[in-house]
């Protein structure tokens, strides 16, 4: 770690992380705005109309990024939760806590936009297909993790309980991802994969990837912002201000 000349461990303490996150949020927000703007432009004005699905396919530009984020964020949340359990590190649990609501939101959006896409192409808002059902379970997992945390007053117990729940639930992520291969699903297969060339026009893939990157930047920005709230809420300590006086210490308590 020391070869970079930066003491990275310094930022593992909430006191050091709080201002660092504050400085990073504007950059990630700006990147999100630019990427989503460019993605929407390519998606609506450059990408051609699909010969099979008409313009309904354009839902892909929010549906796929939202669905990917729902899975990415779950894995990252579970990784922080696992790190927290392994190292007994409070900031790791805080990161997991800060990620959960954004993950839940993207899961909800993946389901909603999916249903908006299903109606015109399959003729049904919802089917009990393996992909759809496993994604719905992911939403319940997120909600369960958030509610479990909220229902335990002792913060350290809440941290550990929700971390265990998050870790056990990781098993659902590969099930969601491979569901279209393992079972005969109505849901179409992967549009982009590491091994095969994309099954879509290059401009469509570009729009989708740019939107995904934009959603990534958005998630980082909003998670960092929520992390700052969590830090302040959990450690209502006067050290947050630059020159906290004894009077302020007294007021804060």
């Amino acid at each position, binding site marked *: 770690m020391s070869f970079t000349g930066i003491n990275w461990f310094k930022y593992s303490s909430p006191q050091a992380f709080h201002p660092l996150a504050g400085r990073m949020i504007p950059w990630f927000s700006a990147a999100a705005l630019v990427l989503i703007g460019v993605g929407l432009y390519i998606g609506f*004005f450059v990408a051609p109309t699909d010969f099979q699905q008409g313009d309904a396919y354009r839902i892909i530009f929010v549906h796929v990024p939202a669905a990917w984020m729902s899975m990415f964020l779950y894995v990252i949340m579970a990784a922080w939760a696992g790190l927290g359990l392994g190292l007994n590190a409070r900031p790791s649990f805080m990161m997991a806590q800060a990620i959960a*609501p954004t993950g839940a939101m993207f899961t909800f959006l993946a389901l909603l936009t999916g249903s908006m*896409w299903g109606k015109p192409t399959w003729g049904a808002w919802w089917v009990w297909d393996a992909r759809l059902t496993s994604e719905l379970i992911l939403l319940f997992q997120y909600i369960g993790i958030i509610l479990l945390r909220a229902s335990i007053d002792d913060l350290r117990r809440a941290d550990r309980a929700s971390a265990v729940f998050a870790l056990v639930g990781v098993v659902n992520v590969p099930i969601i991802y491979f569901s279209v291969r393992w079972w005969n699903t109505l849901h179409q297969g992967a549009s982009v994969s590491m091994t095969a060339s994309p099954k879509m026009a290059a401009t469509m893939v570009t729009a989708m990837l740019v939107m995904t990157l934009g959603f990534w930047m958005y998630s980082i920005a909003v998670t960092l912002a929520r992390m700052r709230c969590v830090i302040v809420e959990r450690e209502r300590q006067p050290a947050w201000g630059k020159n906290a006086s004894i009077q302020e210490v007294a007021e804060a308590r």
Partner: protein
Amino acid sequence: MQWGSLTEFWAMGGYGLYVWTSFGATALCMVWEVLAVWRRHAAAGSRDVS
């Protein structure tokens, strides 16, 4: 660019309702989340350090 007019753009080849509901809901959720975090930040009474 495949849109002849603004009406054509909004119609999305007849799929306007589905397309715009999807994009609208996504935008609403994201804006709502940002505002919610903003309000939480204010409520947390954080003295801005940066």
